[in-house]
């Protein structure tokens, strides 16, 4: 099917997130306004106004009531999904990069960038059921990794936190004590900045994308490397189909290094790989710049990509897609 081109952002996309029902798609961009769309026809539902900087990531609660967003304006905000009202603002001394709700939505893990003399950090905040009771305090602050932490997510039963970032090392932390539990093997691990990390639907495994032109699949509990997918371009975004054994890698040459000679030079394609055989099975073209964000609809029948070009492209799969045999 022809992709639906969703124009609404004025700056490069940074993050995409479907709600659990798969009817809403939330998009973040370097403009200051996260936006919510109908996930089936791409119609814009509304925006969340209030941030004063690029918005790097978001997460939506299981009941689709709350939205949490992290921004370069050094704040993380909680929103009412339906009304677009700001419920609470967490203030930090440095830009917030990644946000993730825990199982049960009572906790959120937030990463902040190194800034001035501050090092990067992972913060755990308790999210109150009633926003009027929300407090600023952190349950836990973890410091240690060098450079930016591009993504931190909850492990099974909220017992661990998985983090990855500029130092190319994936770490698993105890979410109670903040102790470092595991570190990915340097030999088999990524060689350059990890740009993205996405969990499987059941949280048992996760996929990381890196500027070293590869994506890797890991077991969440043991941090065992299971698969590696090699591509020709730095990987900015990754996604896993919840339905079929497919993974999608997005990326492309860094926007500043894009040649102007030929559109093929950048290879701004979303690449599909067979999850098990690690072989490339196809690609979806369309963006005029690198792909920064990818997300699968929880029903596995559509996916969306967000590009440096400021567009979100919503792709519904043709029936043929579900019969791919290799």
């Amino acid at each position, binding site marked *: 099917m022809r992709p639906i081109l969703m124009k609404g952002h004025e700056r490069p996309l940074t993050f995409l997130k479907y709600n659990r029902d798969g009817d809403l798609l939330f998009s973040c961009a370097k403009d200051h306004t996260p936006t919510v769309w109908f996930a089936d026809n791409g119609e814009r539902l509304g925006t969340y106004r209030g941030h004063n900087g690029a918005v790097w990531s978001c997460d939506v609660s*299981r009941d689709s009531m709350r939205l949490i967003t992290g921004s370069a304006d050094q704040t993380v905000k909680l929103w009412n999904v339906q009304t677009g009202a700001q419920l609470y603002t967490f203030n930090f001394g440095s830009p917030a990069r990644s946000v993730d709700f825990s*199982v049960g939505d009572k906790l959120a893990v937030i990463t902040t960038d190194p800034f001035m003399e501050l090092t990067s950090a992972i913060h755990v905040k308790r999210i109150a059921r009633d926003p009027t009771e929300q407090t600023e305090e952190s349950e836990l602050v973890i410091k240690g990794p060098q450079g930016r932490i591009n993504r931190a997510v909850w492990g*099974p*039963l909220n017992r661990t936190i998985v983090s990855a970032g500029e130092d190319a090392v994936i770490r698993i932390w105890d979410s109670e004590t903040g102790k470092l539990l595991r570190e990915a093997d340097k030999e088999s691990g990524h060689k350059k900045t990890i740009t993205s990390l996405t969990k499987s*639907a059941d949280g048992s*495994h996760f996929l990381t994308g890196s500027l070293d032109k590869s994506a890797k699949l890991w*077991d969440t509990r043991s941090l065992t490397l299971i698969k590696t997918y090699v591509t020709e371009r730095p990987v900015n975004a990754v996604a896993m189909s919840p*339905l079929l054994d497919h993974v999608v890698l997005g990326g492309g040459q860094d926007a500043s*290094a894009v040649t102007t000679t030929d559109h093929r030079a950048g290879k701004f394609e979303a690449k599909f790989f067979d999850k098990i055989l690690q072989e490339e099975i196809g690609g979806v073209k369309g963006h005029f710049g690198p792909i920064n964000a990818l997300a699968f609809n929880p029903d596995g029948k559509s996916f969306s990509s967000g590009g440096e070009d400021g567009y979100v492209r919503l792709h519904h799969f043709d029936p043929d897609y579900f019969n791919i045999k290799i």
Partner: protein
Amino acid sequence: MAAEVMLMNEIEAKAASMGIDLIIDFNSIQLPRGEDCGIVSDDEDVYHDDHLEFDSGFGNVIVVDNLPVVPREKFEKLEGVIRKIYSQIGVIKEDGLWMPVDPETKKTLGYCFIEYNTPQEAELAKEKTNGYKLDRAHIFSVNMFDDFDKYMRVPDEWAPPEIKPYTPGENLQKWLTDEKARDQFVIRAGTDTEVLWNDARQSKTELVYKRTYWTESFVQWSPLGTYLATVHRQGAAVWGGANTFNRLMRYAHPQVKLIDFSPGEKFLVTYSSHEPSNPRDANRVVINIFDVRTGKVMRDFKGSADEFTIGGAGGVAGVSWPVFRWGGGKEDKYFAKLGKNMISVYETETFSLIDKKSLKVENVVDFSWSPTDLILALFVPELGGGNQPARVSLVQIPSKVELRQKNLFSISDCKMYWQSNGEYLAVKADRYTKTKKSTYTGFELFRIKERDIPIEVLELDNKNDKIIAFAWEPKGHRFAVIHGDNPRPDISFYSMKSSHNLGRVSKLTTLKGKQANALFWSPGGRFIVLAGLKGFNGQLEFFNVDELETMATAEHFMATDIEWDPTGRYVATAVTSVHEMENGFNIWSFHGKLLYRILKDHFFQFLWRPRPPPFLSAEKEEEILKYLKKYSKKYDAEDQDVSMLLSEQDREKRRMLKEEWEKWISEWRRASEEEKLERQKLRDGEASDEEEEYEAKEVEVEEILDFSEEVLFEE
């Protein structure tokens, strides 16, 4: 260094004042055992050898002997004179001139030491002033300080040289006996250099040898493929062996920049260029010719870069490499260098000029050897504003007899192309039009093997066409020319044989409007790749010249390099690090089917390992060609087996992967099941776990769109 020397000065002055004859053997000073003073050797072998050869630290010091012996009053005057002479050659270090004095008579001893900034300057000073006549009685004798040291240590008694027992060497050509008849190639990417088999049947490579930091600038195969040469700061080295790559020999040449093998691999020419300390001077060039197997320097050439830069149109700066061009096929008998108004031809028996003199040719600007015979083709441009025509002549070596000469009029430039068997020579001549405002191009074709060497003139159909590329078919009688204007030039094929056997050149075909700017013939002839590199982004056309038909068109986006394997079975195209992206190489079959591609960041070099010419006689080869069907049956069967095996292996591999994956899935299911209750608790009792392991389910949704009641019959 300066501080150390001052210290030395003090020690020696002290020793002199005490009347002690001070001779220090610097090599006798050793560090205590097991103590390296923090000096880490990166390569034990290299370090030791080089230590002896260049690293004693006094390479920049010379000793000038036979100076006048003068009393103290005249000391300063003499010192002034010496300083004046030697500072012209290079920069003398501060306190770098030291003339010892007899402590009793207060007279000088008739010698002095001079320390320069660089060893090159010291060497130059030695060369220039050894034998310099200050006056009749004082003829300078100049030596390197290091040499003194070396000669001092020659033992007084002659000891018979040790004869090492013969150890059989490895079979350096083992790779030719590969069962699958594969070829090797070397690639350099990042800091790694790898030699790989091209296993085209299985569409992959197989590693032979890999080494990090194997070379400091580039690698190069010897022309027959026996050796792989690496280049380092201290010199060059060659590697080879039966199954792996061992270092076979080293060739010391500090700061070597370029290397070149003789065609028969007997000799290796190394080149380095050194910045002069006086920026107005030309660079100093050092060229060594080594015997590849013994590692001995057979001859060295030193001089200013000016002496090596003659040739090329209008005095192009820099040395054109190779400086020495080898003649006479694989025999390695002669090599020649272009000089001002002469060509110097050396023979390798004695490494001296033939007949002790160079071949005098006024204003010669270019020459080239026949690839097989001892014939030189040389080009002299037009002189005296056209009064004296340009000419191309063929000269036999060593007799220096001119075999053929052709005068050419109103020539602007000229290029010579030999066919690989030395049967034909094509001279591409750019001529001025009558108005002298533009040029057009024609070819002079020499038939070397025919009586009297007939020459034929060929002009293109449209003689104003620009020539973009020219290439002879290897071992064949055809050539291809790309001509016309970008972006869509034409490509023409010609044959030196015509259908009626008239001994005339004939055109085979012209392909119109091709996106190509380079020609790559298969080493076996018959097939050619018409390539559009650079501006054409890597367009490839695989063309069969026998049938005059295109076999395949393809593209290797951004390709910079193309090379046929030595057997003509495969073509490698590569994107090297001149581009930031797409780095890596593709391997194609001769008819243009992409076999496999490998991506490597910072990809610098791709080189097929050359093969020596086959030992089969021409008749035998013909026989094989005749019964090709019979032979190929066996190989077809092998191919079939391999492809069966491959698909079998592939299936097996997939099965394994699936099984492994299933294990993970069941592991995850189990863990998820175990954690189910706790997860529910975290969600305040909400149990909807099954939705997380999403399964595609057919869900029938009935929606009531409209509801109305109607009374149909009323009675």
